[in-house]
């Protein structure tokens, strides 16, 4: 079981660059890249910050997914 997310999709919809999002949530751009690739599972605080930026509930952005 892995944690998947819709960050890339929501970021594109909000016309935000990786740098913009990283600055809004207070992390490095590399962390956003890792999140979008699904190689990094964020802390609850970061997940909540991201949810706040996209104005969506956390569970609508992050969800459990099966390993391919």
């Amino acid at each position: 079981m892995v944690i998947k997310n819709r960050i890339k999709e929501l970021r594109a919809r909000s016309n935000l660059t990786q740098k913009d999002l990283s600055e809004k949530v207070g992390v490095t751009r590399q962390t956003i890249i890792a999140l979008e690739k699904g190689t990094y599972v964020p802390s609850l605080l970061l997940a909540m910050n991201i949810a706040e930026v996209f104005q969506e509930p956390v569970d609508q952005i992050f969800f459990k997914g099966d390993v391919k």
Partner: protein
Amino acid sequence: MKIVIFESISKIIITIVFAYSMDVAFREIWLIDAFERAYAEGRYNPVHVELNLFPFALCFLLVIIYMVMSKRLKPRKKTDILMKIGEFQDADERERLITNRAARTSYMVASTGGVIAMILMVFSTTIIYRVPSFPIYLFALILITSAIAYAITWCLEFNK
């Protein structure tokens, strides 16, 4: 990542130069010791002791250059003093996690290296008379290996 690579390479270079400086000093102290041992046995064994300060000066210069460059490379922000010095990075939670994993690997390598060094020391009686500063280089090797382990783990985790 470039900060970690810079810090690790700097640390390795400074460790090598520092180990060499200690070797230079130790070789002279070894001569003084030889003189004193002979003197205690009632023999007069003149020795020529001359301390070369160049490696020490070079080491000092490298540390200064390293400190200046390190300060310029790192972002200015309030953080834990341990995170400000050396190769530890904490720009965000992911970097803290990577630093944590890299530090664990480095610790394991240093611990294992320490045990191997102790075993090597037991069998080093023949080497120690030919290279008296063998333990200094052995100790430097542990530091270098752990720094390399830290840098490799950090870069691998960062690029995941």
